């Protein structure tokens, strides 16, 4: 183990040696090292977050045919620092009638729920927070904490738009949690483990996206919904409810919601990479943990870009369409996919054409889904062609 191949564990071993030299007990030294590891990981995530503000603003500018921030530093890379100074020196307003304690805890909880996710992200084969055997459930559990933070913020602001935004956000989270959990089960069924690290190690051979492309697509869609980003950004629909659950927050409290949203997107980009696109694996380069980190971050950034790509090219969907899409389309599809994947996986696992069989199964399911949708669309259009009594327009402005 040299510094250049695995710096984190190299430094940890070096520090452990120093602490032992000072006569410190092994248990205490381990606790100290674990604590400093946590601090390093969290600081890394938050510093990355500052950088993400610039990435997000630069990418959205490109999508909208603008230049984006370009004044401070090369390519405007120091823009986030100006943003931070602005956020910090802004007046901190607590609305009248707000529930002060809950109002102030909410942004902290929102950021915590995201940072907790970093505990299970394997950055490289030897660099990871913890190898939980229930990591996939942990992913769902932290999502629940995030939903709680949003409810708390929306309710404590004493503002009807904030409350409506929070309700919408939780409706999205509760509905899309179902297809997301089922899509998460598919890597678990294929690899036989719920540990994110185990799933990544399995993919040193073949990426799960090849074995189950549909699961990857379902996961990406429900992850975007879980993040509350367009086209599922009903929680902050500017044209309807002004700004959503964080409407009353100013300064750095708003900053925490914004920062946690960006970091959440990036983290989910990381999870898409880890669960379906091999994580730190890339044609044997993962042997060097430092390169593994670079590969992982590159893949996470790519899927973060995909999430932004969707966000800035799609219009917002209507709330009933959003719910119908989850309950009437994604949920049945993911359940059917799970059952078929489990059966096919059992039968094909010992054979030679496992990979091909799994892929073709997914193609067949996708084709059947499209056929069913086409038939449904045809019926709908036929029903529309036959004249019906026009429904009385409800909206009288």
């Amino acid at each position, binding site marked *: 183990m040299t510094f250049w191949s695995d710096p984190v564990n190299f430094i940890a071993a070096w520090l452990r040696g120093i602490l032992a030299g000072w006569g410190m007990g092994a248990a205490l030294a381990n*606790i100290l090292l674990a604590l400093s590891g946590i601090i390093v990981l969290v600081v890394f995530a938050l510093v990355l977050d500052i950088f993400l503000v610039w990435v997000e603003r630069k990418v959205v500018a490109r999508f909208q045919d603008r230049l984006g921030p370009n004044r401070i530093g090369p390519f405007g890379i120091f823009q986030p620092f100006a943003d931070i100074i602005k956020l910090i020196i802004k007046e901190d307003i607590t609305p009248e009638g707000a529930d002060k304690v809950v109002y102030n805890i909410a942004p902290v909880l929102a950021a915590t729920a995201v940072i907790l996710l970093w505990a299970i992200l394997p950055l490289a084969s030897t660099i990871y927070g913890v190898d939980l055997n229930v990591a996939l459930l942990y992913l*769902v*559990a932290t*999502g*629940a*904490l995030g939903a709680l933070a949003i409810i708390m913020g929306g309710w404590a602001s004493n503002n009807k738009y904030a409350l409506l935004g929070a309700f919408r956000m939780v409706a999205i989270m509760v509905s899309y949690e179902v297809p997301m959990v089922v899509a998460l089960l598919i890597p678990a069924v294929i690899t036989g483990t*719920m540990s994110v690290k185990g799933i990544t190690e399995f993919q040193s051979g073949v990426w799960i996206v090849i074995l189950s492309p549909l699961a990857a697509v379902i996961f990406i869609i429900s992850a975007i919904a879980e993040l509350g980003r367009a086209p599922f950004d009903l929680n902050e629909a500017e044209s309807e409810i002004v700004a959503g659950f964080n409407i009353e927050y100013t300064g750095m409290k708003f900053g925490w919601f914004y920062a946690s949203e960006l970091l959440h997107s990036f983290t989910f980009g990381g999870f898409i990479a880890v669960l379906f696109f091999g994580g730190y694996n890339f044609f044997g380069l993962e042997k060097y943990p430092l390169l593994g980190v670079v590969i992982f971050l590159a893949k996470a950034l790519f899927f973060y870009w995909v999430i932004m790509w969707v966000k800035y090219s799609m219009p917002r969907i209507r709330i009933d369409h959003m719910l119908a899409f989850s309950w009437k389309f994604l949920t049945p599809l993911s359940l059917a996919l799970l059952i078929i994947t489990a059966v096919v996986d059992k039968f094909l696992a010992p054979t030679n054409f496992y990979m091909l069989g799994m892929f073709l199964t997914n193609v067949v399911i996708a084709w059947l889904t499209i056929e069913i949708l086409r038939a449904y669309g045809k019926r709908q259009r036929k029903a529309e062609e036959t004249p019906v009594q026009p429904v009385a327009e409800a909206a009288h402005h």
Partner: protein
Amino acid sequence: MTPVQIIFLLCAALILASALMVVTTRNLIHAALWLVAALFGVAMLYAILDAGFLAVVQVVVYIGAIAILFIFAVMLTRREMRDRGPQLRKDWWLAALLSLLVFAGLAFLLVTQPGVNRSAAVMPEGLDTLGKLGAALVSPDAYVLPFEVASVLLLAALIGAVYVAASKK
């Protein structure tokens, strides 16, 4: 005192304090949030006991589903979030006496239990408790029958909910 004991005591204090706040606070939303804190403390206890699966399920089910449903129900049904009126019944001392008796009885039973002072055996490294639990749930000599009965019950509840909620045309 070992570090685990210190963490346990902190957890227990958190659970007890939050549970007390659940029943004493007058604001219903605050009560629900304190309940979340108490449930989270229980999840921490599970984590201390090396039951990672139970800890995470506790958070998913109780905080992610039940507590959020509570909060929703309170927000959607009550305009006034404050509970007025007396917080204690006239015969509160009877309830206090009964719970003291139950506590004393349980404590007595626990203390007289043989082996109460023995510390738990250390789990062997790399023991796949989750896999064993999963296998036990579907194994015919273990819990497959209760598991399936519970599944049928949940399915019945699901169908019932759809039937009740579906608009009759």
